[in-house]
């Protein structure tokens, strides 16, 4: 059997399984930062999560011994496509915070057997949520200048300092944090990556409210917080390699473009026509908007073709690639431009905050538009990605670091 035939067979069985198991009540819904909540989706969500976890589909490409599905990347893609086609979503990545996309892959690469056994299954099943304590008030793009201190106290490190923008810190069970373990070394050489439980006396969090109205992230304070030595990821003082890898995984996870969720929603062009109207020849009535909409749709198409091309060139071996920075920036452009166009074409209906003058979709678009401004800031800002492209891909001189 050829690979394609095998994949077709896998697609068939996946489709049947999804049709038989996806709870009705979840169809057309998404658990999201601005959307439905765990409570609003209720028992259906837990049922669906457990069913997926049973097959290892929370982390389809991880080894089965750690709760994964032991599948190939093309097969993993088939799973998400088939779930989306059925109008559903995979809640596990969303329920684990930074677990499936970032912490898990990094633990798989750098972790000891003990760490893999203790941490991976909880992520793969969607039961343990992780946050990442990287950024600090004075260490954003220049993360290596971080100041949170960890002192060696026998079988544990004791942490003091504060983190900021920690997504999901108030609802996570575990945290991966970068801390300074050597004050005398050069700034990148004195950093270590530790993992610690959030439910302990030395950890406290304070939610930060965003411009979109929600509070998905926090200030996180470490006040003699403890991280077991057994939870040092990678070598002592080699945390910079670990976090660099982690951030590559983050970039990789952000390359897919706008989250075109459910299949039954109308196209952007149709939405535009609904609000703006059309001329006698069926063209969008606003000629200027029409040009910009066409450009946007071409950019979106160019982006998805590029994702496909890079995957094909890697011949299925979708390792974290140098192209991730290019894709992260183009995904960002596509998503942000789409939001701007939507807001604009809705006219004054795109200005709503709450109330029944506005449809749910309209209000949702406004929040999404605001939230979307974050994409070019986190995971390495758009400017930082350009630094990476010019230095790592094009071989131009470093412009950022002194010395």
């Amino acid at each position: 059997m050829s690979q394609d035939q095998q994949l077709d067979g896998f697609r068939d069985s996946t489709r049947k399984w999804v049709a038989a198991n996806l709870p009705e009540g979840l169809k057309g819904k998404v658990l999201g930062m601005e959307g439905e909540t765990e409570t609003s989706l209720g028992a259906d969500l837990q049922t669906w999560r457990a069913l997926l976890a049973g097959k290892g589909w929370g982390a389809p490409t991880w080894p089965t011994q750690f709760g994964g599905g032991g599948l190939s990347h093309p097969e993993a893609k088939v799973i998400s496509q088939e779930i989306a086609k059925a109008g559903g979503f995979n809640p596990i990545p969303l329920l684990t915070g930074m677990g499936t996309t970032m912490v898990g892959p990094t633990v798989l690469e750098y972790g000891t057997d003990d760490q893999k056994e203790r941490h991976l299954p909880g992520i793969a099943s969607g039961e343990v949520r992780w946050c990442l304590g990287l950024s600090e008030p004075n260490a954003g793009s220049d993360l290596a200048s971080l100041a949170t201190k960890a002192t060696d106290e026998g079988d544990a490190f004791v942490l003091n300092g504060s983190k900021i923008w920690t997504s999901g810190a108030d609802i996570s069970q575990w945290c991966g944090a970068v801390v300074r373990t050597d004050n005398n070394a050069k700034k990148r050489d004195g950093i270590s990556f530790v993992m610690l439980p959030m439910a302990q006396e030395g950890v406290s969090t304070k939610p930060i409210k965003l411009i979109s109205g929600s509070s998905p992230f926090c200030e996180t304070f470490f006040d003699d917080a403890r991280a077991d030595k057994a939870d040092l990821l990678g070598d002592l003082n080699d945390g910079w390699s670990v976090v660099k890898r982690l951030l590559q995984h983050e970039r990789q996870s952000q390359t897919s473009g706008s989250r075109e969720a459910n299949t039954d929603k109308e196209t952007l062009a149709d939405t535009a026509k609904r609000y703006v109207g059309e001329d006698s020849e069926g063209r969008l009535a606003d000629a200027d908007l029409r040009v910009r909409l066409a450009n946007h749709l071409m950019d979106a198409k160019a982006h998805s073709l590029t994702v496909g091309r890079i995957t094909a060139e890697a011949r299925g071996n979708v390792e974290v690639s140098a192209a991730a920075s290019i894709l992260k920036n183009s995904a960002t452009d596509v998503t942000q431009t789409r939001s701007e166009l939507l807001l604009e074409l809705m006219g004054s209906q795109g200005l709503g905050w709450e109330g029944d003058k506005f449809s749910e979709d309209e209000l949702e678009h406004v929040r999404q538009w605001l939230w979307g401004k974050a994409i070019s800031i986190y995971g390495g800002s758009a400017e930082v990605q350009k630094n990476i492209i010019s230095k790592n891909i094009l071989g131009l001189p470093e412009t950022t670091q002194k010395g």
Partner: protein
Amino acid sequence: MAALTEEQSMVRDQAKSWATEQAPIGAFRKMRDSDNAERFEPQTWQSMVEMGWTGILVPEAFGGSDLGFLTFGVVLEELGRQLTASPLLASGLVGTSAILLGGNDAQQQALLPRLVDGSEILTLAVDEGPRHEPREVALAATAKDGGYVLSGDKTFVLEGMAATSFVVAARTSGTAGDAKGITLFVVPAGSAGLARKAIATMDNRGYASVSFDAVTLGADAVLGRVDDGFELLEQVLDRGRAGLGAEMIGTSSQAFDMTLEYLKTREQFGRVIGSFQALGHRAAELFSSIELARSCAEGALQTLDAGGDADTVAQMSSLSKCRVGDCLHRMSNQLIQIHGGIGMTDEFDAGFYLKRARALEATFGNRAYHRDRYATQLGF
């Protein structure tokens, strides 16, 4: 670069080494400074024929290799890098596609082997005014004595001076602006009443104006169906556009490589200019836009190879022509800008790329044309 087959990689390597050694940009400069009327070297054309490039789209039964569009694209890309002048796109891709798509058995048997061996240079005569608008065809083809009489003018015909015959889009009914009523004809360049005149363009290629003064043709000159030639014309054009996309990616990539090299070597303020972040970011943006555009160019060629339907091919060709056009436009301007004063000198090659860029952008529909077409295809 798309995941190429072994055969495609071989063709690419062959094209790359041949173009850089035998037909590099320096050869183009020599040709520009000569009084060569055809605007390409006969030897260049002969070598291309020998390497089998004229047969890439043609079935083996007619002497070709039938390797497909992506393969043709990798060749065009290498030629686009060196600005190698030849009728390969105009005849080997566009003219040949017209015969492959629209030719009856007799026409295919008469023309395809000659297109492959290079003795026939067949090029498309479509535009009549300064803007590409195939529906506006007005050149009249009047039925007479079981045949047709052609009267009117064509302009900006690619490789019009070297052509041995033309595929002419003419009007057999309706009025300019109607899709219905267009018919394609194969017209030998030596026909009585046909006259051509070279157009001196900034990119120094062999464009011509061709006039038809009561050119008499038999019914066997019709390519495809009478009055229904518009669809065929669009399909032929879309193949040309997809080919141009590949050539333009090559031109953009070369312009980028020249620029990157300069960023790494030119020093000002005691350091290489590539160490200025404004320029590093611009390089990153240009590089990214070429990567994204490349996916469109290759996507259009792959759609053709996969036998995509006419609508899908049209969409992908317009996407490619517009997106690669945007990228080349910007890249060609930055090629000059980042080279500073030296970029303005005729002695340096940058100007050739800028001038060629604009001609490529305009051929078979500029960016605005294809943006509009794409929007229409998507129904808005």
